[in-house]
């Protein structure tokens, strides 16, 4: 009797994921849980980490093989493979539809007033991008090709959509680890940046107060997206799709006559895109593809890029102070790394810890927004010089 039932139970067991579950899957499930934990308890970019963490867990729960004797297939892959629910999410990322749409929403949410009000601070948007090139050089030393190294370097721009965009042009096979590293480090910036910022500044420097910026008129705010769109399309065609959409979203917001469009771009549309994007990224985190030496190298290089970017931003601010009559607080330098508004918030919090009356958020938003353009410019030059434009 038992001998008759045994093959039957064995066949049933083979149809579940239990027998295919590996230690790697377990590690990735724990990683997914850590992401969700950080999002819920520490509020580290919950909009990103909840979706990525959840789909990372599900992507690592193997189902039965597609063909008898073949490799185990995660149930999540059924929704991302052709014809599946999230197939078009994947296609959207792969065919570069999603990143411009994210920029449209970001533009509709962003007030570029702080950047327009204090033009000299835009230099910090370039200064904080040394990390891109440090990571690029280290990646080349580790044996990555130039295109792969360029895609890895752009993690240091701390701009998720731009990282996806450049990676898809230079090294599409690295999309999974690069997007995961970029978005994870953006979420972990409140942990990564403050020690570096404190290390490179004195207590007196961290307490420097900054005068209130001038008021930016509505006319300037309307002119800004139009002027920048012209400049970027003229000089940086490789990254024009992203910046053009960013500026279109911002024009929706600032012109004041298409509130419905601005609200949709900044609300419903970007929320849908975030859901799609996070599932698409998380579903690339299957253990067999993610737990490789190459991925670990990329994750470490991403951390190097963020650390050097933060440091170079602070040092650039300190160099600027040598020439400025009215000193700026060097803590806002680290905000030039982009990742709007996380990096600006970090600058504000670190300054507030030194002096509760020192409110830097508005000043830090200037270099933070300039950082978006800094990443776009660096990415554009990278694509042009590597022949991927």
């Amino acid at each position, binding site marked *: 009797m038992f001998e008759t039932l045994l093959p039957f139970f064995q066949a049933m067991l083979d149809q579940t994921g239990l027998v295919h579950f590996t230690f790697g899957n377990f590690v990735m499930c724990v990683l997914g849980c850590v992401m969700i934990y950080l999002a819920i308890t520490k509020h580290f970019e919950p909009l990103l980490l909840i979706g990525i963490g959840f789909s990372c867990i599900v992507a690592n729960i193997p189902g039965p093989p597609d063909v008898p004797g073949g490799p185990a297939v995660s149930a999540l892959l059924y929704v991302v493979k052709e014809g599946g629910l999230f197939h078009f999410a994947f296609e959207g990322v792969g065919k570069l539809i999603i990143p411009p749409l994210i920029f449209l929403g970001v533009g509709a949410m962003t007030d570029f007033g702080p950047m*327009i009000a204090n033009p000299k601070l835009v230099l910090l948007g370039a200064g904080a991008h040394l990390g891109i090139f440090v990571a690029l050089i280290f990646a080349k030393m580790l044996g990555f090709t130039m295109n792969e190294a360029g895609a890895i370097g752009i993690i240091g721009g701390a701009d998720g959509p731009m990282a996806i965009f450049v990676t898809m042009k230079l090294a599409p096979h690295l999309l999974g680890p690069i997007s995961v590293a970029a978005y994870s480090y953006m979420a972990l910036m409140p942990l990564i940046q403050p020690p570096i910022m404190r290390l490179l500044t004195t207590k007196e420097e961290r307490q420097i107060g900054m005068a209130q910026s001038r008021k930016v008129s509505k006319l300037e705010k309307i002119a800004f997206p139009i002027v920048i769109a012209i400049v970027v399309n003229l000089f940086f065609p490789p990254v024009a799709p992203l910046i053009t959409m960013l500026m279109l979203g911002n024009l929706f917001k600032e012109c004041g006559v298409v509130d419905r469009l601005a609200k949709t771009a900044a609300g419903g549309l970007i929320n849908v895109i975030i859901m799609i994007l996070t599932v698409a990224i998380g579903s690339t985190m299957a253990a067999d593809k993610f737990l490789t030496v190459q991925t670990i190298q990329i994750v470490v290089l991403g951390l190097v890029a963020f650390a050097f970017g933060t440091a170079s931003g602070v040092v650039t601010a300190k160099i600027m102070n040598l020439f400025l009559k009215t000193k700026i607080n060097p803590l806002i330098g680290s905000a030039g790394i982009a990742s709007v508004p996380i990096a600006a918030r970090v600058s504000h919090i670190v300054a507030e810890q030194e002096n509760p009356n020192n409110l830097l958020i508005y000043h830090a938003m200037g270099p933070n927004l300039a950082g978006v353009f800094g990443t776009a410019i660096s990415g554009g030059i990278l694509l042009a010089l590597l022949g991927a434009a």
Partner: protein
Amino acid sequence: MNAIIPDTLAGALILSIIDFFLSFVIIAGIGVVLAFFPLLNRFASAEDKHGHKHSHGKKHVHGHGHSALPAAASVTPAGNAADQHVAAISAAVAVVVGPHKIVQIERAN
């Protein structure tokens, strides 16, 4: 793809140096463009003055330059509007729509 930079460590160094400094130059260029933005306000205020002169010129013909502004009947509070808020609301309305306007305050249905 026609890569301009060789796929070597030296190539990576050259690429990084060119890209980093070019980024600085271009961002500085954007900064210079932004520094000229306050000039837009001068043009706008000059345009405003011109517009005002124009509307004052027409005043004698049409009665008032801002004829589309609403005018209503009374500053007496209607319905449940608190008496102590009426002065503040009237002042705010006066600032927005200009003096010599009569506004009726009542509960919205």
